[in-house]
């Protein structure tokens, strides 16, 4: 059912659209960064970095819209959870954007095709992360808690992959000191990807809260189910 106040309904819809747009841009940035890495496409990397400006602007716009709704409408229940979730989600999205920029910057510094196996692993990791992000955003827009929960579970996969890559790179660095520079950059990229996955997981947890009112964050640390 729609809100009786049509203006309110419209405000919420516009907010949703803004988040959709920001999500789309962030996805664009991540896939751009990953493609740039895979093909060492420096032009694409530079173009992707330029997108970050719009992300920042969108973040500020959405924050302001949220505050306005809080002030004027005193939202409760599902509306309130939607607003607070949105406020947190845009922070995570903005961070993903920044991480994509960092990734592109590392790509710009890379010049050689060395350490192929690791690069392949990273590309695979990136696909998973990209997919997680996509699923999380879809879950938010469709208020699908089950989908969000699946995203949360996939974080383990990413963490496992990261745990594998790190000693691999360490091995390479010990073997051949000339590869340290490249290995370090790849290590950074792996770190960025892992953190992108974390942000996507945060997104998922927020969506579960928004839909069900259950707070699933910090599950392992606080021992909650």
């Amino acid at each position: 059912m729609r809100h009786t106040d049509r203006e309110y309904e419209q405000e919420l819809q516009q907010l949703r659209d803004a988040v959709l747009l920001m999500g789309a841009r962030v996805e664009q940035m991540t896939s751009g960064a990953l493609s740039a890495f895979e093909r060492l496409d420096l032009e694409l990397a530079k173009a992707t970095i330029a997108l970050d400006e719009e992300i920042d602007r969108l973040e500020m716009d959405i924050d302001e819209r949220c505050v306005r709704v809080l002030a004027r409408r005193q939202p409760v229940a599902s509306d309130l959870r939607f607003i607070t979730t949105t406020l947190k989600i845009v922070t995570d999205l903005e961070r993903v954007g920044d991480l994509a920029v960092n990734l592109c910057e590392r790509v710009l510094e890379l010049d050689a095709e060395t350490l192929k196996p690791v690069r392949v692993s990273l590309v695979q990791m990136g696909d998973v992360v990209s997919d997680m992000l996509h699923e999380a955003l879809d879950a938010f827009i469709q208020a699908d808690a089950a989908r969000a929960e699946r995203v949360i579970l996939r974080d383990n996969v990413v963490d496992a992959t990261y745990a594998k890559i790190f000693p691999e790179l360490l091995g390479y660095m010990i073997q051949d000191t000339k590869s340290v520079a490249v290995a370090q950059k790849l290590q950074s990229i792996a770190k960025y990807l892992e953190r992108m996955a974390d942000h996507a997981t945060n997104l998922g947890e927020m969506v579960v809260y928004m839909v069900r009112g259950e707070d699933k964050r910090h599950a392992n640390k606080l021992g909650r189910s």
Partner: protein
Amino acid sequence: MTAKADVSMSPPLLGVSSSEDEPATRVAGETRATGRTATTKDESIKIRVEELRASYGDAEVLKGITLPIQSHKVTAIIGPSGCGKSTFIRCLNRMHEVTPGARAAGRVLLDGLDINREDVDPVRVRRRVGMVFQKPNPFPTMSIRDNVLAGLRLNGLRIKNPDALVERALRHVALWDEVKDVLSRAGTSLSGGQQQRLCIARTLALEPEVVLMDEPCSALDPVATAHVEELIHELRESYTIVIVTHNMQQAARVADFTAFFYMGLLVEYDLTDVIFTRPKERRTEDYITGRFG
């Protein structure tokens, strides 16, 4: 004709505790009370309403309400116009029957004793369960001082130290400093918010156990409303409070527990925090977010 202050009713016939009942868990689509997060210890429930039905003539306004009122807590009743919330609160102190043609059935257990029974004197009930009304109604023929003492005097109760009592009652409602020099002025000479606080003082002077408030702030401006809400907050320590309000934000501000009524039925009852952040019933969610259809 004076008698020593006697505000007790006839002793309960049975022991206080009723059968141990698990709180009703919600089944999808059912409209029973959900007291899942509320405590069920009997000592902490001041009033237990069971299958309360009320009607005006042929029109049935309450269709079977079952609800606990927690002791020393504020319970708010919200719902759209005509949902029966005012009728409900008036059943809690037998004021409902004052209206010609009004009838009520079901049990209202005050400390375990059903006040709806034939042999219970409504006048006695009302001394234990006081009421504050929507429109402030101090007695116009009486001064501020006399208004505070009115309840005691009209009941023929002896007042040992009237000045002290007046001061205590007025301090309790944060009105003392404003009126202490003009106690002999007419009760109606005060502003709306002050009048309402005077009415509350008048009710409190009788030392009831429960205070019912029927939309106490709807005739007041925001500042006066804030004063009364703060008062409600403090009163919680000494009294059990039930407040009917059509202002949801007010319920969110003052109440520990909230019950949502719709068309004479209880749709949902829970902690206020839960009702306003993650209500369980669709109808509750729709009402409080403004999706009236």
